């Protein structure tokens, strides 16, 4: 660990001496290898298995689910489990509630966070360091620790069992993350572009609007999709805050399957597929862009 601070500008091993250099091209790290490919595909299979098993179970008829000799390929696919899941009470209302809560959370946090990200990434101001420290600090607070005070806050405000209350609690974990990620995306836009625009007579605000905004647009999309997913997937806050069944969100609806005696795996897996579907669609659109947002600037120096 300690030696790793050696500046990477001195390539490791340069002290090994010229004699060793003759063994060059022994194995340069570049080329793809068949062994790695096979190993990687095996890893992919292992990682994918739980998801595959979920989808497969969802399409199996009941007799094929409750069996001691499971089949690993779809032999007689059926939609019965999906019909069962969709027929349970409150499915559509919970999807609607999830959409309302999620979209409101995304809209508010994205607007507020974009403004803040511009300031943090581009402008010097008093308290900037303090602000950054605060954003980092609040991201470290585990959500579990915040359930009690958030619940009591809403309880005092008479907003338990209300979707507005849930949006407020979701902002608590979506907003800091959104500010931080957008900061990364804004920081990745070369400042020279704005400088040029300002030399040409743009004001600071105009430069933000005409130069930074279009360039950050993909980052805004990525961040909003990720915020969407976080809010859509959240369970425990919604479970604590919402008591009436017609107000529950889709994750709470899903959890109501398991609490009944003896889980019905077929409908539960079908419901799981339905819950995951919008998120998976979004995520595949995003690809790996979120990761680069979080650590933007970490390697670029």
């Amino acid at each position: 660990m300690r030696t790793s601070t050696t500046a990477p500008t001195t390539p490791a091993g340069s002290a090994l001496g010229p004699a060793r250099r003759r063994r060059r091209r022994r194995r340069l790290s570049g080329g793809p290898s068949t062994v790695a490919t096979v190993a990687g595909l095996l890893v992919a299979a292992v990682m994918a298995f739980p998801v595959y098993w979920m989808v497969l179970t969802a399409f199996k008829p009941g007799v094929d689910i409750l069996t001691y000799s499971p089949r690993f390929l779809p032999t007689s696919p059926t939609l019965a489990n999906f019909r069962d899941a969709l027929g349970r009470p409150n499915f559509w209302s919970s999807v609607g509630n999830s959409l309302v809560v999620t979209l409101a959370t995304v809209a508010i946090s994205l607007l507020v966070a974009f403004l803040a990200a511009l300031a943090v990434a581009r402008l010097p101001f008093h308290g900037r360091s303090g602000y950054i420290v605060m954003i980092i600090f609040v991201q470290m607070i585990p959500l579990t620790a915040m359930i009690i005070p958030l619940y009591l806050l809403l309880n005092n405000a008479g907003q338990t069992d209300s979707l507005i209350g849930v949006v407020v609690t979701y902002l608590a974990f979506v907003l800091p993350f959104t500010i931080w990620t957008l900061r990364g995306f804004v920081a990745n836009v070369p400042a020279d572009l704005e400088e040029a625009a300002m030399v040409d007579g743009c004001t600071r605000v105009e430069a933000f609007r005409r130069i930074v905004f279009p360039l950050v647009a993909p980052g805004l999309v990525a961040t909003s999709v990720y915020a969407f997913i976080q809010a859509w997937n959240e369970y425990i806050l919604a479970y604590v805050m919402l008591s009436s069944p017609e107000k529950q969100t889709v994750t709470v609806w899903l959890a109501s399957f398991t609490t009944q005696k003896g889980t019905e795996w077929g409908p539960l897996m079908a419901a799981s597929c339905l819950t995951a579907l919008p998120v998976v669609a979004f995520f595949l659109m995003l690809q790996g862009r979120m990761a680069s947002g979080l650590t933007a600037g970490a390697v670029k120096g």
Partner: protein
Amino acid sequence: MASLDTGPTTGPLGGPVTGQSAGRPARPPTSIRPSRRLSPLPYLLVGPSVLLLVVVLGYPMARLVVISLQRYRLRELIRGSGEFVGLDNYRAVLGDPFFLSVVLRTVVFTAVAVTLTIVLSTAMAMLMRRMHGWARIVLQSVLVLVWAMPALVSIAVWQWLFDFDFGVANWALSSLGLDSFDRHNWFADPKQGFVVITGLVVWAALPFVVITLYAGITQVPKELEEAATVDGASGWLVFRHVTFPILRPIYVIVASLSVIWDFGVFQQVYVMLNGKPSKDYYLIGVYSFIESFGVNDYGKGSAIAVLMVLMLLAASVVYIRQMIRLGDVR
């Protein structure tokens, strides 16, 4: 700690790494300084977020600390205000050997889960680099798919995989000749239960860490590693002395985030055990939640939550320093 000091002129990585800054002379992080230092613009931009954060986080955090100093049960909940009892809640929590056992369990769980996550994802990220393009896309898509799974869906699926009667895990193990796994209850023994829970947590955490590490690895200049290889360094030495130091900031971030997430694990235990985990399954987050919403002792639950945040803070000093550097450099 001292190892983080990379000197005043270098970047967060301790040296110029990519070509981005190579051609240009170093310049201060914010190159355009407004002529008037006290422009109102940044404050207008930051204002709304500060206001909102104070309402949704600042106030609740303060409230958490206040309640942890109060007697706050069902009666106080209905009345809406508690009664100050000083440090009684903390005394009750810290004086209880059960709390220490919960903390210990949480620390062990976190250490195991984070180590597994980091080691496995490093291996996977390095593997991805050597894979053929099409296969890499397959693996990446699988990772994204797993990443997208809502936590609750993952829990349901893993419950099903490890089901007592018809779970495929029991079927596979007993097919391998391990008869004891025929109709095996994984959750009867907390040790085995935590194997399943750790598996789920690591499985769900891997995609983010692998994708982040891989994104970092692709930014490591090939020439550096090639130079080291030419000089005779083996794969492990190249990783240890070239790749890892460059990726160090990313490692700090993903490791710290993993610690934060795993230390706060709640749903994977609470929901996996259908909302009634036995005391042998309590992690600190579960303990805090059940003390509050199960036992209705919000004061004690808050004290546990405050202690949890303090422990995390102490553990995350390195992370905070890394992130502040990241935020400041640009």
